[in-house]
């Protein structure tokens, strides 16, 4: 925990303070990480989001058909997707894909003395290794979430169009009417917070690996489990803050 906080402090320094002291980011490593964390994850995110959209629509239809209110399926799909399912499940995908990979990669660098070598070459490992991953994650997870929202809505439409009596025009009108921009923004805020948690937990686990391959394996598992837990708990807290009024 102490290490985690220290990592966050030095990250904030390198992201917020150092650029104003003339130590700018290097752009190309950020793009390389964005490709890895974001672009390469799009097929998985698309498939996940489509499945969620379809599932949500089917469940909504099941409940609403009994009330004869099939027309409200889009409402449920939109709100659940934008507020909860989109950010959470896409974060799950990114944890499984990139959180584990970042922890394993940094852990391997730690045990093979690469990080020590960087320090001895007077290259700050936080600046050189962590900052690009941090920025890439902070940009790409919200971007993936927005993408996932589109695809999920499309999945909901597919159910309505092919299996229910909701027309395309009706779907679009209801969808736009039911969701306001805050639903979208709250999801994006959530995913930005998740991005922060995922990448700092993964980097912290990787940077503090002890021992050889075994340590790398443990760190990777720890990174995945801890970020899942942190993400879900944080999601509950954010939902309480954003939407719940007792």
């Amino acid at each position, binding site marked *: 925990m102490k290490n985690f906080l220290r990592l966050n402090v030095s990250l904030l320094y390198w992201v917020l303070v150092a650029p104003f002291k003339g130590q700018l980011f290097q752009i190309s490593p950020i793009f390389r990480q964005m490709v890895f964390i974001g672009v390469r994850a799009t097929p998985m995110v698309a498939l996940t989001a489509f499945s969620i959209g379809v599932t949500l629509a089917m469940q909504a239809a099941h409940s609403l058909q009994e009330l004869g209110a099939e027309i409200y399926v889009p409402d449920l799909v939109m709100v659940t997707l934008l507020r909860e399912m989109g950010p959470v499940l896409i974060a799950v995908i990114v944890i499984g894909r990139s959180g584990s990979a970042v922890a394993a990669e940094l852990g391997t*660098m730690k045990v093979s003395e690469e990080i020590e*070598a960087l320090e*001895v070459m007077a*290259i700050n490992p936080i600046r050189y290794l962590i900052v690009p991953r941090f920025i890439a994650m902070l940009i790409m997870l919200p971007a993936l979430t927005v993408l996932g929202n589109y695809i999920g809505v499309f999945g909901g439409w597919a159910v309505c169009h092919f299996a229910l009596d909701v027309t395309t025009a009706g779907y679009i009108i209801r969808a736009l009417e039911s969701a306001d921009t805050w639903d979208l923004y709250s999801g994006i805020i959530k995913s930005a917070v998740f991005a922060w948690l995922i990448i700092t937990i993964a980097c912290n686990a990787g940077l503090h690996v002890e021992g050889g391959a075994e340590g790398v394996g443990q760190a990777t598992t720890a990174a995945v489990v801890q970020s899942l837990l942190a993400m879900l708990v944080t999601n509950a807290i954010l939902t309480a803050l954003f939407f719940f009024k007792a």
Partner: protein
Amino acid sequence: MPDSPPVVEVANLVRKFGERTVIDNLSFTIQRGETLVIMGGSGCGKSTLLRHIIGVIKPTAGSVKIFGDEITTMNDRQIAEVRRRFGMLFQSGALLASLTVGENVALPLSQHTDLSSDEIEQIVTQKLQMVGLTGFNHLKPSEISGGMRKRVGLARALVLDPELLFSDEPTSGLDPIMTAVVDKLTLELTRAEGMTAVVVTHDMTSAFRIATRMIMLGRGRILAQGTPDEIRTHPDPEVQQFINGEADGPMPLNLSQDDHEHHPHVKARPLVSAQHRFRHKMP
């Protein structure tokens, strides 16, 4: 020369890992322009000693001064300043696996200088040529041999033209010809360009070829130190056993950890026999 302040000054250095004392009250200095060779049995703490000098780990007790400043109490920024002035070759090479050979060597240049990429590429090619590696720029470290990785590590350590070089077993895993090339490079840089070098090596031919002074470690202490000639004729049979590479002698095989610490000093053998066994000649 001895009037100028030492480049490295180690005083009463102690390092314990748990109960085990790996470095036991070590003191020595390194003068500018010297080539100090550090020898000693495997696991006697040579790499650990280097790690203390470059400030990667903090000692249990004692002081390490580098370029006149105490490194054990510096903050990260001060250490980074000092580290730009020396190069380090790790025992494992410690190349970044995600970068190519060329990018590895270029790394200190791209991070610490404002050179254009053409200039960087030119320097990288030249440094790689110095260590006998031309045309390997685009391979990944996993695609080259262990000895080649070592030499890439050396090229990287030299790329900023440091005034001080730490080299942890630069010639292990190299064939005799490549060893000679690396030794010649070290000699050129130290003798002609005044670089100071600290070299850990097990290779006695190489050690006697490049050293201006030698230190032999054992049981966390200095067993012997002096010029190559003094070491070659050192009366301590343990030293003689080491430089002649004999299995049988005062340093027994298969010591347990505790034995290493408490091994009693063995009675000296006659000097005559020690000299008789000597095989290494200066080139």
